[in-house]
């Protein structure tokens, strides 16, 4: 059974119905996947300061001792990580981006050529596929393209698969089908 980690980066409580559906989904034993949701806005998560301690002082460990300490093992253990966010100023929320930045302890500082480009080496052998789930019902195509492209690049840098951007999933069935397809 695949393990899906949903990082809920909705910054406020304006989408209670969707979050209720999510709660139901995670406790539904009939699903073909194991799903865990982490609501990021409730947690103390600091911004990456670019100190590089996780690369050159305490390899693999972030200098911040905050809620990310609990999230890192969940990310590594998952088969897919889904960033759930509304479109914000044409991109994902700052809350979502803050968590993306904090993923750098999962890569190694060393450079290597990957797909013909310079990238950092991976620190972990097993890496979850990434996906984005936008809460917007009818996003503009330019925003969809930009978000797709940026997270596709992130997936290349993390040396993992990108499962794509999903959106306009409002019923539990829709959500379950989209997640099953990851």
């Amino acid at each position, binding site marked *: 059974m695949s393990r899906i980690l949903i990082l809920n980066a909705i910054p406020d409580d304006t989408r209670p119905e969707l979050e209720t559906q999510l709660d139901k989904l995670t406790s539904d034993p009939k699903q073909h996947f194991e799903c865990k949701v982490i609501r990021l806005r409730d947690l103390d998560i600091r911004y990456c300061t*670019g100190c590089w301690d996780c690369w050159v002082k305490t390899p693999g460990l972030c200098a911040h001792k905050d809620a990310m300490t609990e999230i890192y093992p969940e990310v590594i253990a998952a088969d897919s990580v889904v960033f759930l966010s509304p479109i914000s*100023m044409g991109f994902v929320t700052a809350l979502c981006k803050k968590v993306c930045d904090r993923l750098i302890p999962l890569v190694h500082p060393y450079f290597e*050529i990957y797909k*013909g480009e310079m990238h950092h080496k991976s620190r972990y052998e097993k890496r979850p596929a990434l996906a984005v789930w936008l809460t917007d019902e009818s996003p503009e195509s330019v925003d969809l393209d930009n978000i797709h492209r940026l997270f596709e690049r992130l997936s290349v840098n993390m040396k993992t698969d990108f499962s794509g951007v999903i959106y306009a999933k409002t019923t539990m069935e829709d959500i379950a089908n989209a997640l099953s397809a990851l």
Partner: protein
Amino acid sequence: MRYLLCNGSPKGNNGNTSMILDALAEGISSVSDQHIIRANLNRVQEHESLVLTLLDSEVIIIAFPLYTDAMPGITMAFIEALRPHIGQFDKHTFCFVVQSGFPERIHCEPVEKYLIRLAGILGAKYGGTLILGGGMMMNPKRFQIVNHIGARLSDTQVFDETCIKNATPLIRFPVVSRGLMTLATKLPVTQSYWDSQLKANGAYERRFDCPYEPKD
């Protein structure tokens, strides 16, 4: 002309982004009657008051290092702070600077596309994105290039397209050189920048640690 130079690096005045803005500011100042304000976006609690300064400026430059293929979280937080003022930027020009340790432009091009879109969302004029790849340090040659871009900016209020393209001309490694680059990255000298820091911190032996590996 009133300029606001925003440093979107979490490192504030201690990073490469700050040095790039120094070079740009010096270039802009080479023409008289230029009023420059500098601001650090790492003071997130000051974003709202900074937006008021921004509204009073004419040319805004937002510079940041590439973090996980886009802007750092603090820079995105500042972008979100602009949302209540959408519609008030029609007399503003937004220019951007993206700097990355990777030598190829390809890493920065998706965020460049996003920044074009951002200017459109704001209803502002897009003044171009200067991509600076491959620089862990600001050397004199690079300082001169950026300085010149700043001087041209004060003439036209947008980045000179030719100048910014020449700043990092390499889009991707040519196919013929990729094998050679692969070999080069296997040489210890390629990783010496990191190795020297790992050794100085007594962390070299632990450099491949995987602290979050599942125990089962």
